[in-house]
């Protein structure tokens, strides 16, 4: 199967992630969807790396993973603090700030 | 030509004065007043000296000083005056001390201190001088906009009941105009950059470059809209009645006396020389606005019940005359227009001042709250009458000369518009005499009687039609025994007399012997108009006609 399939798959994953962000309420899940988007980007990178026969893509993927990990740390911290005050992780509950 | 930088001094002195007055410790109002009076008088002296140093026959711009300011934009801090600007500086020099003296006893709303007022006043004076003295378009623009701030605070902090609304309206109107003009200013700069290699804002340089007509129209509009809002031409005028009515009297005087003249000054100084073709092509439309303003505003003035609003509307009518004089493209009319700017500043200034004195007595701005004042305060009435006659341009007063010049100068090139505008002098007589009769003549009424205020419908106090005839047969021809009013209106105090006297003197003096001013003004105007008078076609009399008739 050709590289295009990987790209398409990645695109689909990205889309799923984006849609997930839009439709899911639970902050954790939303966040996971975002991670999914990041990883779809990773997949794309690796694919292209393979295509161009250079390693840059893979290397970048590693960078991205690290960054994603950092993001997880920060994100969970924030979401936890929110959860502990409100006893709920629903992003829809957090809308004191509007208009 | 002297080396002393008069113009710079005239900008710096009041600015410093403002800083000092503002810095004074609280409760030193008296000192603040005296200081402001001193500073403004000093500026007057400087203005006079500058006039002495100015050589009417010499080159266009004199007393010039110039230092590079923002080299990246090719902006210089360049000052210089021609006759047109110089007379405006003189006007400023005269008006500000008068205003200071007139505001001496004002009671600011909400226990504010008058210190701030006088500080803003002096700052305003400094900026106004800058506007007229700038020979660099960017510098002009900066002063043009900065000028809003002090006036904004003067209206907003020290004005009447609806001052907030008026202040914001004033600021936004002017700001919109200013911003549109900013676009044109930048555009002008860009054009100059493409024409001269590197961009400049120097007026003299910009005057030289040939601009493509299409571009000219755009740039012209940019400047024109700003100026048409400043010197309100119908339909950009509605901010003036509010501001003029709500501002403290001193503010109103400077607003219509000087601030708004920046607009007409701009027409003459920037629109015509920089965009001659556009000016020529668009003149008919401008003239329609101008003449419409003359008639429309005069009629509106008749319909006003608020004296300050009424005076504001009369100013709008007068600005129509000025615009007519400028866009008639003849030296006579142009000179008349510039003279008009000065005279209107004095005449309407005086009118505002005396109306203010009346309001200070009656505590109401409604025409209907007054009546028969003349009997109790003949001096006040006399000054009122002089101011009124000046604003209806009676021969012997200063305004006559300018209005006559504008009309006689416009007639050859723009007959239709001139005839229409001439009808305006009847309307002028109407609104002035109506106001005078309702407030000064007749039996004591309104605040003079019950000492209370009642809102007056503009027509509730019109004597019945044919009142003259019928009443004459009925009543006897001797002074009716005057009703004894409970509330007596004082005549002018010594201070108020000191305020009015110089203005009245100017009204008469400039009405009898205007030539010196004219000689000061004419060269600059002639230089501006030369471009237009030279062109062969009868200067679009035909479009004038077509425009005039519709």
């Amino acid at each position, binding site marked *: 199967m050709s590289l295009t399939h990987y790209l398409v798959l990645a695109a689909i994953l990205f889309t799923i992630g*984006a849609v997930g*962000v*839009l*439709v899911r309420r639970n902050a954790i899940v*939303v966040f996971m969807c975002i991670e999914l988007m990041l990883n779809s980007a990773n997949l794309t990178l690796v694919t292209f790396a393979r295509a161009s026969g250079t390693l840059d893509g893979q290397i970048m993927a590693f960078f991205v993973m690290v960054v994603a990990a950092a993001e997880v740390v920060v994100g969970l911290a924030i979401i936890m603090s929110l959860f502990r005050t409100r006893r709920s992780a629903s*992003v*829809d509950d957090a*809308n004191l700030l*509007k*208009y | 030509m002297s080396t002393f930088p008069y113009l710079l001094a005239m900008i710096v002195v009041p600015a410093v004065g403002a800083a000092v007055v503002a810095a004074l410790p609280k409760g030193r109002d008296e000192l603040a007043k005296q200081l402001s009076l001193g500073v403004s008088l000093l500026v007057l002296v400087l203005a006079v000296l500058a006039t002495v140093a100015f050589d009417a026959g010499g080159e266009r711009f004199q007393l010039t000083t110039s230092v590079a300011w923002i080299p990246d934009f090719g902006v210089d801090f360049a000052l210089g005056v021609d006759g047109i600007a110089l007379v405006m500086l003189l006007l400023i020099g005269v008006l500000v001390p008068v205003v200071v003296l007139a505001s001496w006893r004002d009671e600011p709303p909400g226990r504010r201190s008058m210190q701030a007022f006088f500080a803003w006043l002096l700052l305003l004076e400094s900026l106004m001088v800058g506007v007229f003295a700038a020979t660099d378009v960017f510098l002009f623009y900066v002063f043009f906009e900065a000028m809003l701030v002090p006036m904004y605070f003067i209206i907003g902090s020290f004005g009447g009941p609806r001052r907030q609304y008026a202040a914001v309206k004033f600021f936004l109107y002017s700001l919109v105009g200013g911003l549109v003009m900013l676009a044109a200013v930048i555009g002008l700069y860009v054009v100059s950059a493409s024409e001269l290699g590197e961009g400049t804002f120097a007026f003299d340089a910009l005057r030289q470059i040939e601009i493509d007509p299409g571009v000219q129209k755009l740039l012209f509009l940019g400047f024109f809209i700003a100026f048409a809002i400043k010197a309100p031409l119908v*339909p950009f*005028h*509605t901010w003036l009645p509010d501001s003029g009515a709500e501002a403290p009297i001193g503010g109103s005087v400077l607003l219509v006396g000087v601030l708004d003249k920046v607009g007409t000054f701009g027409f003459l100084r920037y629109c015509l020389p920089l965009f001659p073709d556009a000016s020529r092509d668009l003149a008919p439309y401008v003239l329609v606005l101008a003449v419409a303003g003359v008639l*429309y505003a005069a*009629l*509106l003035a008749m*319909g*006003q019940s608020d004296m300050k609003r009424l005076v504001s509307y009369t100013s709008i009518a007068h600005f129509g005359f000025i615009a007519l004089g400028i866009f008639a493209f*003849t030296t*006579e009319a142009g*000179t008349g227009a510039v003279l008009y700017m000065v005279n209107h500043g004095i005449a309407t200034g005086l009118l505002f001042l005396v109306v203010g004195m009346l309001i200070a007595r009656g505590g109401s701005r409604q025409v209907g709250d007054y009546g*028969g004042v*003349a*009997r109790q305060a003949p001096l006040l009435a006399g000054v009122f009458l002089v101011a009124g006659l000046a604003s209806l341009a*009676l*021969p012997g007063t200063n305004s*006559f*000369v300018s209005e*006559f010049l504008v*009309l*006689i100068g416009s*007639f*050859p090139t723009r007959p239709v518009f*001139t005839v229409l505008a*001439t009808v305006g*002098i*009847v309307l002028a*007589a*109407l609104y002035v005499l109506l106001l005078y*009769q309702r407030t*000064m*003549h*007749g039996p004591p009424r309104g605040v003079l009687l019950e000492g209370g205020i009642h809102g007056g419908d503009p027509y509730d106090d019109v*004597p019945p*039609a*044919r009142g*003259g*005839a019928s*009443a*004459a*047969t009925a009543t*006897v*021809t001797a*002074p*009716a025994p*005057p009703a004894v009013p409970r509330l007596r209106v004082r005549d002018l105090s010594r201070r108020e007399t000191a305020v009015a006297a110089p203005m009245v003197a100017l009204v008469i003096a400039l009405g009898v012997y*205007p*030539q010196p001013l*004219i000689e000061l003004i004419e060269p600059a105007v*002639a230089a501006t108009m030369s471009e237009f008078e030279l062109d062969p076609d009868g200067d679009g009399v035909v479009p004038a006609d077509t425009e005039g008739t519709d």
Partner: protein
Amino acid sequence: METVPADGLIAASWLLIALPLAGAAVLLLGGRRTDRWGHLLGTGTVVAAFVLGLLCTLQLDGRQVEVGLYTFVATGSLDVPVGLLFDPLSAVFVLLITGVGALIHVYSIGYMAHDPRRRRFFAYLNLFVAAMLLLVLGDNYVALYVGWEGVGLASYLLIAFWHERPAAATAAKKAFIMNRVGDVGLALAIFLMFAQLGTVSYDGVFGSVGTLAAGTVTAIGLLLLLGACGKSGQFPLQAWLPDAMEGPTPVSALIHAATMVTAGVYLIARSAPIYDETPTARAVVLAVGAITLLIGAIAGCAQDDIKKVLAYSTVSQIGYMFLAVGLGPIGYVAGLAHLLTHGFFKAGLFLGAGSVMHAMNDQVDMRRFGGLAPHMKVTFVTFGLGYLALIGFPFLSGFYTKDAIIEAAFDRGDGWGYLLGGVAILAAGLTAFYMTRLMLMTFFGRPRWEPGVHPHESPPVMTAPMVLLAVGSVFAGFLLVVAFPLEEWLAPVFGEPVEAEHVVAPIVVSVLVTAVMVIGVLTAWLFVGRREVPAAAPVRVSPVTRAARRALYADAVNESLLMRPGQWLARALVFVDNRGVDGAVNGLAASLGGSSSRLGRTQTGFVRSYALSMLGGAVVVAGALLAVTAG
């Protein structure tokens, strides 16, 4: 005939204007300090001016002398000097103004003696004299215009002298406004001259007026006429003059009878070279004069206010003068002669009326007079002489001058001539009627006085001027027409007198006029003299009378055609300006605010909707970029 530079006393003729002006300035600025001697100063200046004027006139001997003063306005191609032109025409007017003016000042000393504001009264009178002299002495149309509006101002101030009374204030305003309407015409005429000839001086204009297109000249002529109508209370601008009687009587005598209202005649006579070029305009002048003299005469017949009768009589007499100057060269002198004699007897009549009112506690309603002759002999006699002069009693001044005009009218020869002459004669009859009516109601019959009225003769300071004027009204006509013919004096201005071949023999005209006059007198006696005059004006009267009482509805017309619509328009425009123009701006602001809060709703506070907006944005961006790149 070219002008020569001033020499001798005439070089100082600017003092003629300066003296009264200075008087006015002192009295106005001097304040109460001048109360005690103010009236004396005021009178003194005018007397001095009269003497000076007399001397200058004696030095004149038919020259046209110009007195250059200073440059008023000079810019571009416009050059307006302040200069005086002292020629036979202006000399005549100077004498009339200062002479009658001086007498009336003297009279006012007595008349205004008890008025707390007498000083200001004299100040205004002086101001008027100065302005009027500038009007007749100026050597260019702008100077004339300045004086023109100056006398308008003085008239405004004096009519409104008792401004506590709304009637007076309104009358003053009405006078000023209607004058301003005329002034527009005068101003436009000046603009037209400048635009076409590049000059506004009499010399320049008259010199080159021949080069103009007929249409242009006619336009100038008509515009000048409009100005003249405004100032002289001629149709259609006559309505202000009767109301102007609200002013103190001396004012009515000086301004609204003897001098100011005749300025229109002066203007047309002065502009003779222009009218010589345009028969059309001249014909209109004729028409105006004829119409006005009828209107005035008719209205005069039905008034009960003694001053209004005289006012309408003035309107009608000035109509005669317009008729005369409208006739052209043959009429100028006649018109001016009538102007002068009229100045005498009409001033005399007004002073007499003032004296009567003085005696009757300022009553003006003739129905409350009656039988005054024995009580105030001097007044009766002087008034009577003035009356006879006015109705054209043989060999009194009116007789000479009025006949001259009527003859001139006939001398046109054509049908119009007969028509005009006929009208003039008819009006002469009416004049006789209403004046006789006045005499009978005032001096004869049974007293119908208000209770508590004790008529008494006025003090000498008032009667003296009346006497002098009476003398004038008796002999002036003879002097001006027969003894020292005015036409020779004015020859330098209007050219040598032409001996017109008379269509109708003068003697016939005289007889005719006299006959009509007698008829008028008799009719008056039949209607008024024989029966009792009701103390209140009868209500049930013929429509003719009603129309006459309301001066043929002139006010009603002005009111319904101009005043009401004007007020309505002003109201409407105020609405438009607030709701429309200003409303548009405020509406824009409001709509911005509205859209702001509506857009603000999109800021829901829900993360997911924010994300959606971002995603949408991203899609749009990508799409747009693709589109741009592809296209």
